[in-house]
């Protein structure tokens, strides 16, 4: 186990190495992204403030991520409730299909949506990115919500019903408060996925690019690379922050309902 632990620590370093490089170069005054480092600067972050195109991208990314997160979580609630409470005909097939985007290469999702959208004579835009992102976020939302619903003792709802509540008020008074941490966690995860997603946005974004698409276009200009690093740093820090908060909520929910059933996925 000792040697395994050493291996594990090296593995973690390998996992995190690229991410740790980000801030190094983001705060490095040299315009070339290479060692040795030059001096400390926050210039690249200030540069970001001047890129008005980026602000538009950020705005459309936020808009898309919030909408997708809400849609994916809502769809996730329905499906998670259905599978954790009821068994219905074709359950395996239906759920397998809903979860398919988890393994399906994103380019397939992107291409197939693009074909249909163009064929039907619509033009792409933020809405089509939302459609795609909702599709890929829903499986994650379901996975989180399913464990939230599964750890909820069904006799709690029966008890509320037994004490005179209707199905609707039972949901409001008992189910919702108890799975709320799971819902928040699903919202945050979906938001994060949508904020970071590139390919679907690349194919389906119309005139206004999302942040990752804009970032991708920045990468072609060596002059802009330090700013890419700065923006990357911000995005990564935000993602990690959101994920930590999501995990916090998920655990609180698990603790409340009494059993912790693992982490994400």
């Amino acid at each position, binding site marked *: 186990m000792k040697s395994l632990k050493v291996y594990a620590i090296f593995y973690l370093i390998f*996992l995190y190495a690229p991410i740790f490089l980000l801030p190094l170069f983001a705060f490095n005054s040299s315009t070339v992204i290479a060692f040795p480092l030059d001096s400390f600067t926050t210039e690249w972050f200030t540069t970001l403030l001047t890129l008005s195109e980026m602000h538009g991208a950020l705005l459309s990314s936020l808009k898309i991520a919030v909408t997708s997160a809400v849609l994916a979580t809502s769809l996730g609630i329905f499906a998670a409730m259905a599978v954790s409470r009821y068994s219905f005909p074709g359950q395996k097939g239906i759920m397998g299909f809903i979860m398919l985007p988890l393994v399906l290469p994103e380019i397939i999702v992107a291409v*197939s949506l693009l074909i249909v959208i163009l064929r039907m004579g619509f033009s792409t835009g933020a809405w089509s990115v939302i459609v795609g992102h909702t599709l890929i976020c829903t499986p994650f939302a379901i996975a989180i919500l399913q464990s939230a619903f599964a750890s909820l003792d069904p006799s709690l709802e029966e008890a509320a019903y037994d004490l005179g509540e209707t199905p609707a008020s039972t949901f409001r008074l008992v189910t919702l408060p108890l799975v709320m941490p799971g819902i928040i966690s699903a919202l945050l995860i979906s938001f994060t996925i949508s904020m970071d997603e590139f390919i679907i946005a690349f*194919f389906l974004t119309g005139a206004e690019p999302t942040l990752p698409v804009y970032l991708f276009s920045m990468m072609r200009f060596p002059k802009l690379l330090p700013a890419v690093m700065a923006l990357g740093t911000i995005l*990564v820090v935000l993602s990690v922050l959101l994920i930590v908060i999501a995990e916090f909520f998920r655990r609180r929910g698990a603790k409340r309902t009494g059993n912790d059933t693992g982490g994400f996925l």
Partner: protein
Amino acid sequence: MVEKLRRFFRTEKGTGLLLVSPTAIYALLMLAVPLAAVVLISFWTQNGVRDFDTTMTLANYKEALTDPLYRQLMLRSLMVSGLVTLITVLLAFPIAYFVSFGVKAEHKSLWIFLITIPFWTSYLIRVFLWKVILGYNGVLNSGLKAVGLIEEPLTFILYNVNAVIITLAHAYAPFAILPIFVALEKIDRSLLEAARDLGENRVMTFLRVTLPLAAPGVVAAVLIVFIPTIGDYVTPRLVGGPGGLMIANMIQTQFLRLNNAPLGATLAVLAMLIVAVIAIVFVIIGNRAAGQKGARK
């Protein structure tokens, strides 16, 4: 009729179906229909910029399967994804094993959380950073030069297949660890003690008990890495160079550059078919291997 339906929705089956229907209908409209459209279009021919000749033809398939360029891209994609899968799973198993068996129960979820965090950060940025690390003037080369290990920068590590493999193996690491970890966690620890009690040493216990019981996790890990990597676009595009491009890049080119959606669709269908066949074969092999170990399910 209406009354009959209403009664059906009050049964367990009916309520379940009713509840799952918004999500299922969404997946049907936004995933099943588009996928079907891809298949359909793959039999059409492009006619001008936005127009299709809708006579059904196998010409695209003929072209995709005979043109050496497409065949090479397909084979390279398969090879890259196979290698990436092998590397990730091999590297991941000891980690999953360590977290499951070598970490105190109260620290396990912290470890798993640490392992998954990088996955939640922007894929695009992570891939880009590998470009920075592996580049001609990159972190690795400048580092190695600084310590005097090399004089000329290494060139075999960027803009080729190697770079694609390294980057993908890094990106998919958490995917491989999680299913194996879950399978290992499910193993009843008294089984291992029983094997020791019956006279097996540590290594044989691992080989005869732990490994077979972890097989479903390994199968899941293989699938969860293999299937998406074959369709990866960003990594070959950013670090692959011309020699490291994969099938997804060609699909994108056909759609957005050459404006030949039917051929792009054909390539997408072929890629999905190949992945599906390999995945099914693998699942069957995995099931058979697991099935021998008796009535675990």
